[in-house]
């Protein structure tokens, strides 16, 4: 380095030790902020524990019974699975408004294949799963290759799939008894196990297992890191050699497939298969669980475990208010508060660059 600039000569005497600062200046709030930044699922977990404690104190021992707590799990299983699908999409900075209706149409297809057309039940399930994945694939194609905004694409497919569902099914419900008689496999996830007074259904276990698998995939495989990278900064991801279009396609298709899996679980929970379930706001419930779970709507941040906690928070709050005999509208109001609170916390945590 012969031509070093005059003003740069002073650098030879510059400090070479690793930067260190006195720690006593950092307040508890700052350290908490840092902790939450590095552990994204901690906020919903803390809120979940707090809400269980608060309702436990307000209601008493009845609330703490393992029966009540496992009942909450049964109630949130479907939203939990849909939330997992939603999480994948939101991690890529997208949104999927169609997961709810994809679930309903998949359930209707499974039911029709097994009962009306008399296909073997396993084949009917496969057809239903394929239908869900196909809906997701359509979303993925439009988002990744047509480069349309995910909100618009899934707003469109939400309506398209919902209408298709009503036209195809002629809004005819398949009765619980018929499912039981002709295709008991569709009720697989209603199977329940008793441990003391705790009641676990196969649906609850499936939800937890699914979230665990997705957590592994997102954190310990290359594809999972690519999902985060695409949501974080798509341009940087592309220049780093990630095939962003393929990742987006896979994410939307997988979301459709998971929604179809939720359909199977929902048949177990509801017994009958009703096309009119398409008007239920499952998609918004899934987004609510995801947002309360601390997944950033701007993409690339959050842990899928948070989504499960988010769904549980909503379940605990609605069960708690129910048991207190409150007007159901209080649940809606509180959910709104939780959503805004969760996003506010997300913004606050994002400020930390430590």
């Amino acid at each position: 380095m012969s031509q070093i600039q005059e003003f740069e000569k002073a650098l030879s005497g510059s400090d070479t030790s690793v930067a260190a600062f006195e720690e006593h200046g950092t307040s508890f709030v700052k350290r908490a902020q840092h902790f939450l930044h590095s552990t994204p699922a901690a906020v919903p977990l803390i809120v979940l524990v707090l809400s269980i404690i608060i309702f436990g104190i307000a209601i008493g021992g009845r609330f703490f019974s393992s029966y009540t707590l496992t009942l909450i799990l049964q109630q949130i299983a479907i939203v939990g699975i849909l939330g997992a699908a939603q999480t994948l999409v939101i991690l890529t900075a997208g949104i999927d408004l169609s997961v709810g209706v994809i679930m309903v149409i998949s359930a209707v297809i499974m039911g029709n294949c097994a009962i009306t057309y008399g296909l073997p039940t396993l084949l009917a399930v496969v057809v239903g799963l394929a239908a869900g994945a196909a809906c997701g694939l359509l979303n993925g194609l439009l988002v990744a290759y047509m480069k349309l905004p995910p909100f618009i694409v899934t707003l469109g497919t939400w309506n398209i799939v919902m209408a298709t569902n009503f036209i195809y099914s002629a809004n005819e419900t398949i009765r619980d008894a018929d499912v039981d008689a002709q295709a008991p496999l569709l009720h697989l996830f209603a199977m329940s196990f008793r441990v003391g007074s705790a009641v676990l259904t196969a649906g609850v276990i499936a939800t937890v297992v699914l979230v665990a698998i997705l957590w592994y995939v997102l954190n310990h495989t290359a594809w999972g890191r690519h999902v985060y990278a695409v949501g974080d900064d798509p341009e940087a991801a592309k220049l780093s050699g990630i095939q962003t279009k393929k990742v987006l396609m896979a994410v939307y298709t997988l979301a459709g497939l998971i929604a179809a899996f939720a359909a199977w679980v929902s048949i177990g929970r509801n017994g009958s298969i009703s096309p009119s379930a398409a008007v239920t706001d499952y998609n918004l419930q899934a987004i609510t669980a995801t947002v309360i779970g601390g997944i950033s709507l701007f993409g690339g941040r959050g842990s899928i475990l948070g989504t499960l906690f988010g769904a549980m928070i909503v379940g605990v709050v609605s069960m708690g208010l129910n048991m207190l005999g409150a007007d159901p509208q209080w649940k809606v109001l509180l959910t709104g508060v939780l959503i805004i609170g969760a996003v506010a916390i997300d913004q606050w945590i994002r400020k930390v660059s430590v």
Partner: protein
Amino acid sequence: MTQEPVLTARGLTKRYGRVTALNNCDFDLYPGEILAVIGDNGAGKSTLIKAISGAVHADEGVIELDGKQVQFKSPIEAREAGIETVYQNLALSPALSIADNMFLGREIRKPGPLGSWLRMLDRPAMEKRARDKLTELGLMTIQNISQAVETLSGGQRQGVAVARAAAFGSKVVIMDEPTAALGVKESRRVLELILDVKKRGLPIVLISHNMPHVFEVADRIHIHRLGRRLCVVDPKQISMSDAVALMTGAKKPPEDALAA
């Protein structure tokens, strides 16, 4: 120069609608050298670099790497051929760790069934190699290899991006404005990094507006003007003001410089 060039381009032309960004442009890079590319804003430097790194497909012209004609359809293909680029925006994912970023798109999987069946990442191996690379390039101030890139300073991020390119580039490393946003100390570090990479035998293409930096590290300077190579000069035989005069059209290039 008796050596064969590593990378050559002949007659590159690229038009964006009615705007001509590259006009029959030539380019040569020789083994082990640092070639600086300078030029006014809008001269077409970035388009030239993008054409070489696969981000842009030229309308006309041929690119040869090691004497073989290549046509990159994407930056991924250029990377596979051994051309690594440090982009001006660094192309790092802020929320991912340093190790994850360095191996983005070419992760190492665990050996055995964990890797081939469960596709599990080999984090320890990735972190070790990332740490080795950073140490090799003198980036000792990064304490924690698994910290998120967004927690690093601008100079450290630049260092990570350069380390990534140096670690994987087997033929050519291209750096677009690597010191543009950096302080005095950080710029110095990056220049040292560039020289370190050169010492390891890799040729480097350096795009910069910073004349003192260019004159310090470059072996040859490619002066780009109006979409083509105006001339190639030796920084030891020309003054900075002459280079600026050539680049802005205030002065005509000497006859012999055109051939270099």
